[in-house]
């Protein structure tokens, strides 16, 4: 780890997400955050995919509720989202699968989605039901810090950790505010662009994260474009954890659940081997 585990904000206890990051930090390994699309390939597969990803070594699962117009996502997650919706995936059904998962596993789960499905479901109802189903946090790609004060307050006062995103384009004063407000972890977007695999990580990431770290109330995970164990190790060297998304969907497409398990296992192994 580039530095000691950050201090959690005093008014909030560190939840399951913070504990998991702390455990990784204690053994000197980067935390592995993995994204899966709920209801993909089909709603009946959701529980199995969650269980296998957890067993294969994910520290935190980003549980993606599919939205028809995922404008922060690249082709892989777009396709997975559309297929899941076409196969009948819903927020309500996804939360049921999450509750079943929670009966078997304690891997922290962050619900990852866009605002509109939550608004349609009802924000208060979502907070209540997702917490009851065992969700630990929520991440909304289209709710930037300061974007909707009332909504942000509703999430911040809830038992869920509101995970915030920071981009390479975010100016320093705003970055400090975002870092101070993010709970669970702080999601550092590695590059401008949408989600999806890339070949290289920008060399400046380490320096950028070091600049943010003094302001961060939670551990920092780097995501967007991380698709190989080597890239995961490189990103984890700069931060406290890595987020791998589209590459998991690709692995699932290529090799089914066994391909998925193998890929997550390779990420886990690489991160553990690189521990310092």
């Amino acid at each position, binding site marked *: 780890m580039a530095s000691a585990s950050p201090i959690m904000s005093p008014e909030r206890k560190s939840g399951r997400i913070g504990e998991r990051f702390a455990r990784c930090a204690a053994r000197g390994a980067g935390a592995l955050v993995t994204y899966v699309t709920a209801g993909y390939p089909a709603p009946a597969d959701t529980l199995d995919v969650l269980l296998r990803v957890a067993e294969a070594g994910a520290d935190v699962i980003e549980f993606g509720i599919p*939205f*028809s*117009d995922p*404008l*922060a996502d*690249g082709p892989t997650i*777009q396709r997975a989202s*559309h297929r899941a*919706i076409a196969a009948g995936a*819903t*927020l309500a059904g996804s939360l049921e699968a999450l509750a079943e998962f929670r009966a078997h596993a304690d891997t922290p789960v962050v619900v990852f989605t*866009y*605002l*509109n*499905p*939550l*608004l*349609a*479901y009802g924000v208060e109802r979502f907070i209540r039901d997702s917490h009851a189903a065992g969700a630990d946090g929520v991440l909304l*790609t*289209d*709710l*930037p*810090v300061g*974007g*909707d004060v009332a909504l942000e307050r509703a999430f911040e006062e809830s038992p869920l950790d509101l995970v*915030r*995103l*920071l*981009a*390479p*384009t*975010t*100016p320093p004063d*705003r970055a400090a505010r*975002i870092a101070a407000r993010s709970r669970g972890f702080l999601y550092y*977007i590695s590059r*401008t*662009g*949408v989600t999806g695999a890339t070949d290289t990580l920008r060399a400046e990431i380490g320096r950028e994260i070091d600049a943010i770290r003094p302001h961060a109330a939670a551990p920092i995970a780097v995501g967007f474009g991380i698709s190989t164990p080597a890239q995961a190790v490189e990103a984890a060297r700069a931060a406290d954890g890595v987020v791998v998304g589209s590459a998991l969907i690709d692995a699932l497409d290529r090799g089914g659940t066994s391909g998925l398990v193998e890929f997550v296992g390779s990420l886990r192994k690489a991160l553990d081997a690189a521990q310092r």
Partner: protein
Amino acid sequence: MAEQFTATPPALELGRFGRFGGRYVPETLIAALDELAAAYDEARRDEGFFAEFDALLRDYVGRPTPLYRAARLGEAAGGITVYLKREDLNHTGAHKINNALAQILLARRMGKRRIIAETGAGQHGVATATVCALFGLDCVVYMGAEDARRQALNVFRMELLGAQVRVVESGSRTLKDATNEAIRDWVTNVGDTHYIIGSVVGPDPYPRMVRDFQSVIGREARAQILGAEGRLPAAVVACVGGGSNAMGIFHAFIPDEEVRLVGVEAAGAGIESGRHAATLAAGRPGVLHGSLSFLLQDDAGQVAEAHSISAGLDYPGVGPEHAYLRESGRAEYVSVTDEEALDAFRELARTEGIIPALESAHAVAYVLREGRRWRDSGPVVICLSGRGDKDVAQVAEAYGPGGPEVGG
């Protein structure tokens, strides 16, 4: 002339129209939106910006556009006085050029070398390609595959003007999906790229900025009707997809409480059929493309596909200020079907020798259907937002081999 643009938006906080509007975008875009809002605020106070904009509107676009009294159309609408605000006579054939021109001036102030745009009917894409040619900037236009098919002529026009047209195959393959792709491009290339949104939609500052750039329509029309009739109109009628021509013509009339502001949405095959684009009539509040407004969506919050014969109205969202004007009661929103719009398309051609855009034909259709109610209360102004050359092939297809006499 900068004072024309300083009208305070009807907003409780910047970027909001009542509860609507806002900035619901990925974090990556926040800095670019801040930069754009700052550049716009600076330009608003700069006489030089408006001197350049006004000169181009006059010498390049051909403004002011006429307010034309359409006597035979008025007869056909039940003996009323109807005026057409002739945005179809603008260079490139629609009101879209007003906004594209102002935004490219802003892009140059910001030092952006690359321009992207989305387009539905192709009119905004053509306008953007045109101003990019004028200023020598790179231009990429996203267009849904379905729209590229039904507006093939506009695809060719954009390419002729030097733009690259990227055909979007995802989702419903229409304006919504083209907008998704344009936003994804912007997120990726935000450093050197300006996104010229074509309507009063998207995150702040776009809805208020595009409205301001289009408000020249209403300022001219208001002065022209006062000159011609010595009084304000009973009603101002405009079609609404995203709603930029409607906001443009409504804006100057908002303080005139006696003037009814009527937005006409596309009812497609009929609202009860579920195949329509009448967002304000049948949608619920939701977030799409960066702002909170009305939205066609299912119970789970998935965005529904819109349906309209008119590619420019075929959009499941609507500008947030329209949502606000509807909720506040200042404007009313109605709808007409594909069939009514086709009838109006032909009626205007036959009565006035003017072939309107299918979008604008929706506003004409509403006045043909309901205009007689204003017979005793004053003239009606229709925003004829664009010309119909681009639609002729599609209308011929809709009429079938029997020609326009069949089904009439």
